[in-house]
């Protein structure tokens, strides 16, 4: 895996090309052994964990995108709970959230990179 930048505890990883995600959908990606769901809403690129805590399956990348009262969300394809794309927070259950990752677009808007903080 190509590691682009390394500071003391932050790493940016190149994940895929912009073209690899159809606008309005998501893809699953693997990073450091974790499964991520990476979305392109058309207005931005977002990354959260791919694991759906309600069904126990790695499926969030296959959810539908949208907004609930202005909050950008993905709806789990299994039982339809909503997760905020920016924070990973579940809208239906304040106790539950999935990890959220910082993203950026580089190389003249061609590549998608995701930041993973090492522990």
């Amino acid at each position, binding site marked *: *895996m190509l590691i682009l930048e390394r500071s003391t505890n932050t790493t940016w990883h190149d*994940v*895929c090309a912009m073209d*690899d*995600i*159809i*606008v*309005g*959908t998501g*893809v*699953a*990606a*693997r*990073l450091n052994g974790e*499964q991520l769901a*990476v979305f392109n*809403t058309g*207005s931005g690129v977002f990354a959260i964990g791919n694991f759906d805590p309600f*069904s*126990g*399956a*790695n*499926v969030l990348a*296959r*959810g*539908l*995108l*949208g*907004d*609930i*009262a*202005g909050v*950008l*969300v993905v*709806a789990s*394809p*299994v039982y*339809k709970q909503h997760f905020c794309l920016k924070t990973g927070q579940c809208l239906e259950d304040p106790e539950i959230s999935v990890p959220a990752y910082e993203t950026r677009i580089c190389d003249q808007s061609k590549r998608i990179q995701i930041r993973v903080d090492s522990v």
Partner: protein
Amino acid sequence: MKKLQLLIVGNGMVGQRLLEDLSRMPHVYNITVFCEESRAAYDRVHLSSYFSGASADELSLVAPEFFEQNDIRFLREEAVQSIDCLRKTAFGTRGTIIKYDTLVLATGSYPYVPPIPGHDRVGCHVYRTLDDLDAIRRDAANCRTGVVIGGGLLGLEAAKALSDLGLQTHVVEFAPQLMAVQLDQQGGAILRNKITALGVQVHNGKSTQKIIDGDQSRHKLVFADGELEADLILFSAGIRPRDALARDAGLAVGERGGVIVNDYFQTSDPDIYAIGEVALWQNKIFGLVAPGYDMARKLAAHLCQQSGEAFTGADMSTKLKLMGVEVGSIGDAQARSPGARTCVYEDGVKGVYKKLIVSDDCKTLLGAVLVGDTSDYDSLLQYMLNALPLPESPSSLILPSLEGKPMLGVDALPGTAQICSCNNVSKAGLCQAITSGCTTIGALKKETRAASTCGGCASLVKQVLESELKRQGIAVNDHICEHFACTRQGLYHLVRINKIRTFDELLQQHGKGHGCEICKPAAASIFASCWNDFVLDPKLVGLQDTNDNFLANLQKDGSYSVVPRIPGGEITPQKLEVLAKVAQQYDLYTKITGGQRIDLFGARVDQLPMIWRDLVDAGFESGHAYGKALRTVKSCVGSSWCRYGVQDSVGMAIYVEERYRGLRSPHKLKMAVSGCTRECAEAQSKDVGIIATEKGWNLYVCGNGGMRPRHAELFASDLDDATLIRYIDRFLMFYIATADRLQRTSVWRDNMVGGLSYLQDVVINDSLGLASELEAQMQSLVDTYVCEWKRTIEDPEALKRFRPFVNDDLPDEQIVYVRERGQKRPPRAEEKALASIEHEELV
């Protein structure tokens, strides 16, 4: 407390209603019922539907186990022979002897047969019971022509029945006009024209002198002036109360028959009551079901000492459809009230006649006659019943609805206004039910019974519902979601009319925000129903719901199941072998579905294209098990093999499945074809059911299995192949255009104002002028069908989405299975926990 013996004589519509009303109240009675017929109470109002396909079971008014559950002793096929009022004892015709404390006569009426010489010849019938109808049907099989003597409401119903049986039908009426009780002369004349145009010959002003052998036919009717030959004769010359029992027991009866009752239905013996058509109240017999139901309700309350509500007579207004002709009669239709004025609208071309009868000061409505168009009936009836002040120009109420027609808002009605006269439901009663949570037409009908007998008040019930919901501020936001301020139907029309093909366009022009998992799949389904573009096109793929998104059915562990189409459930051994090989190769859990197909479970997303390739290469295609679309057309083996089959049900099922495959709709669609009336394909539990007859196909619609089972209703009979398909085309496209999101045809039908007959009007009679458009829309979908699996595996761009990870080709290692009964299945939670401990130990 000692129980009292309550004996009810007769189990017709009114007698049964009394039992139902009693069963809902706490009471002190042991109830015994004498039922003369072989069948318990059934719907006589819709008797003629027995010839157009309804079965005796469908006409039944008695819920299964009703008598057992309510501890009612039910004596089938036993009438009461005599009553000994002194000893309070009744004697049954089969020897049952019952001592009673209270007795209710609900013996109803019998058809009057005028004592014309020859009235009792073989082949002369009456029209009152299912047994009568069975006899008519048997006899009609050997007849060409039929004549109904009597041109009243029932006579015309009977004429329809004869005409449905394929007889050339005549109606002979003594009076100079049809329906002399309900209509005026001009209304009768218009009705006559309409009925004649439908092929029934009407002979007014004819008095039958005798019936003798015919020259060409079995009978000859001899009139004072002329004669008429016919093979079958049906008397429908009015009804008479069945009061013989009461007469013999010494109860007071009216001069022209009927057991005299007071305001509480008590006869001259205070322990004997009479209700329904046998009861004579203030010298009046009430020959409609609504007053009968009202009597039953009041008597039940009286017997339970709940209230002293007296009977105050009943409104005899009626609205009905005779042989497809709408007829309405309100109040004083013959303008007999002193000083009454009239105002008439007539359109001789369309055959529409409307007359208002108003008070001499033109302030209140006294009555009305409507022929050919009863759309004003509901509001006129309310004007009359509630004495609402008429608009300045009353004629505006019946003129064709141009701009500015004064609408009777339901808000103007008082709470006491009776909306459903059959079941005595007032506006206040409806509002109460709405407040307590009945916010759909279906729920409201179930709770209050309004609009569930004759259905005449359905549109008024709907108006009350809408207005009340609005008034109570119960959010009947019918918007599909926060992004679009309209219903699914609204979206559908926007898409179709403005030729919108993408969600971005739709959102920009008519919505706001980014959309969501409600509106996106709805829009995707609408786009597919209108334009049939490839659902995984980059512009559409982000709209597809879970299953459509990957053209397979997502399971709980994130894997998918795959269902190839097996049209009509017919499959060669060679193709079965292919399925077996694919299942073995990918280790797929294999199960037969309820829809005569085979479901292959446990495919990872990255395996789907490979599986499809193997299946497509062997001649399979997508079964659309993942879509809100046509699923399966189930069939029995039909006439090719079955000893009883009368048509090739498998051939028809395959044809239908291949015609509508891939059709996207508001919800999934299931169909079935049975090769004979034994109905082995269970077509009556489907959205579209087709059942073979000797002459063609019967079409049933709007059935459902699953959580809320609903029998499909007979929509049309004995259709040829082409007509059958044409009706299904229209039916499906009309459903697609007008249903709510995720609304099955059964619920759509339950909420449809105007019910089945409205749907029949639209589809069969093309009342909205939409038929050819609907057919063209369907044809375009049929012509543009492609298999979505094949399309996908041929499209490298579309295939990219099926990679397990965008940056890694190794599959998801967290999808694991255990084995059971020789196949794999996802591990249960406890098995998973165990596996992860082992995994950690291994690491």
